[in-house]
């Protein structure tokens, strides 16, 4: 069985399942954030269920509208806090703690082999730790909370065998953007993506979280890495015991296997208005920008901020460019403070936003006006995503975004590497 099949078989109490089957599976962890939690918990009460199926398997995070940008948002947060208290949900992270997809791994909620549902499409992020995470809507979440179970179609799996070392200034964000460009925004529609091959041994957990996060941008249901030594070390560092290796069976059946070398990959940029409209940074180099955004559940971790700080240290961003930085969690912000990363960014002209989703989903805090252009480390560049439908969003790695903020236009971070080396 593939990783997806192994997890769904275990969760549905079956010895074996295979792609195409429908199963009813027990949910190991259910996540809600502030856009949907109040509505879900209201509906749960309306449905006549007086208690959350198991409060300890439920995590609620206030991360999207942080701090509350409107009276309505504040009221929604109030309703969420009341529900959380009444239902006895212990795993509750209030405004400012961080983005759900950062907090769940960081605070030790995610273990390899788990089946996790969340009212957010980027719930695929947990695949980085070998957990089958996937997004669901509010009605499905009410059903999952009320019964502890949910129906699933066992997905076909596409395996990506990755080889080769990344070039300097190229990151795993560039890898997942290139996969989206090559296979398309529906290239893994309703499929599980499984990452394998020697190259993943060089991908730290931060990089894996970036890749699994964006699996959904190719339509995937899951974006799974096997659990290995890197997973084990991360789990030990984040409040839990380690984990044994967890991978697919050797005789697992795949819909397709793609062997891909990463060694000659240049920095990638997704262009407006599709995540799969991807090219090398050279194709768009020189385009003036109004805003640069460093953050989101894709690339708001300390590793991402550090890369940007190294590029910006001792310099100032280009006049007329706004650089917004939203650390993915309070812990990330604290680490950035302790290590001087924050000072480098602020001194360079960055505006630091509250740990949270920030402007990524177009809610508030850094939206774009007509004809403005933004390059960001986030995950979506759909039309109207960050405000005006006339605005343009480019997606790239933290290095490319920092290099662009410095230059005032989309810039190739490899040139900085050359400059520093020389």
């Amino acid at each position, binding site marked *: 069985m593939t990783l997806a099949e192994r997890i769904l078989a275990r969760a549905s109490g079956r010895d074996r399942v295979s792609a195409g089957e429908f199963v009813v599976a027990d949910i190991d962890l259910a996540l809600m954030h502030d856009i949907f939690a109040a509505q879900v918990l209201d509906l749960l009460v309306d449905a006549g269920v007086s208690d959350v199926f198991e409060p300890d398997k439920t995590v609620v995070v206030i991360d999207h509208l942080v701090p509350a940008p409107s009276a309505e948002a504040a009221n929604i947060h109030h309703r969420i806090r009341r529900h959380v208290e009444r239902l006895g949900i212990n795993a509750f992270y209030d405004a400012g703690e961080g983005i759900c997809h950062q907090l769940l791994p960081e605070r030790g909620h995610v273990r390899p082999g788990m089946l996790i549902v969340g009212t957010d499409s980027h719930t695929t992020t947990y695949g980085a730790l070998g957990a089958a995470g996937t997004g669901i809507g509010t*009605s499905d979440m009410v059903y999952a909370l009320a019964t502890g179970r949910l129906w699933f179609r066992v997905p076909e799996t596409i395996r990506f065998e990755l080889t080769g070392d990344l070039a300097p200034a190229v990151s795993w964000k560039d890898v997942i953007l290139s996969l989206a460009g090559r296979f398309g925004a529906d290239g893994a*529609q309703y499929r599980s993506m499984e990452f394998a091959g020697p190259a993943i041994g060089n991908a730290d957990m931060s990089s894996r979280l970036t890749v699994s996060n964006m699996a959904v941008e190719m339509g995937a249901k899951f974006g799974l890495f096997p659990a290995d030594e890197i997973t084990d070390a991360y789990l030990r560092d984040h409040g839990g015991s380690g984990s044994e290796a967890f991978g697919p069976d050797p005789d697992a059946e795949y819909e397709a296997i793609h062997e891909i070398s990463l060694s000659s990959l240049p920095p990638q940029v997704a262009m407006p208005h599709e995540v799969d409209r991807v090219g090398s940074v050279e194709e768009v180099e020189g385009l003036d920008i109004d805003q640069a955004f460093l953050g989101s559940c894709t690339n708001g971790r300390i590793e991402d901020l550090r890369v940007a700080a190294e590029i910006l240290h001792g310099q100032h961003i280009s006049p007329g460019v706004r650089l917004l930085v939203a650390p993915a969690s309070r812990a990330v912000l604290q680490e950035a403070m302790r290590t001087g990363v924050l000072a480098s960014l602020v001194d360079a002209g960055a505006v630091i936003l509250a740990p949270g989703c920030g402007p990524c989903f*177009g809610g508030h805090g850094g939206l774009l006006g007509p004809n403005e252009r933004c390059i960001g480390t986030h995950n979506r560049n759909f039309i109207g995503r960050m405000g005006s439908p006339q605005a343009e969003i480019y997606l790239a790695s933290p290095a490319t975004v920092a290099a662009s903020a410095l230059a005032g236009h989309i810039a190739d971070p490899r040139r900085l590497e050359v400059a520093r080396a020389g």
Partner: protein
Amino acid sequence: MQAEALRGRVWRFDHDISTDVLSPGQYAVDPVEVRKLHVLESVNPAFAPGVQPGDVIVAGRNFGCGSSRETAAENLLALGVACVVAESLSRLFTRNAVAVGLPVVVCHGILEAFADGDDIEVDLGTGRVVNLTSGASRQGESLPEEMREILAAGGILAVLRSQKPVDVSRRQH
């Protein structure tokens, strides 16, 4: 499940219609009466004011890509859209459409077979799609039985209400 044919007027959209245009983030926590006014406004501002109950959306590949927001499907239902027929549908949109009771059909070649304003007939049971204006027809894929049962019940919450009350305190794990 009995064969169910529905007829309506077509609104045609291109590929990759995302949840950001079906349910823009700026109105994420607004009530449905507000949200439905902004559906698809960035790609066709005439849609939300002009759509009539029973109208059908015909779209290209990857319809509903992006967010998990169920409001993408709920907004269409609130506007009276009877069905979405697309070259392909995002997983999350499919799941949410089923969950709220909005019928969907995947049908290759649908985009070239329809123009805005054509009359369409969709058989949800067989997946057969006919252009009543031009006479063209296409064979789509009806949803699997498991999903159609939820649709027929009126959505996943209706399924939940019809089940025996769940005593969560005694649930075994």
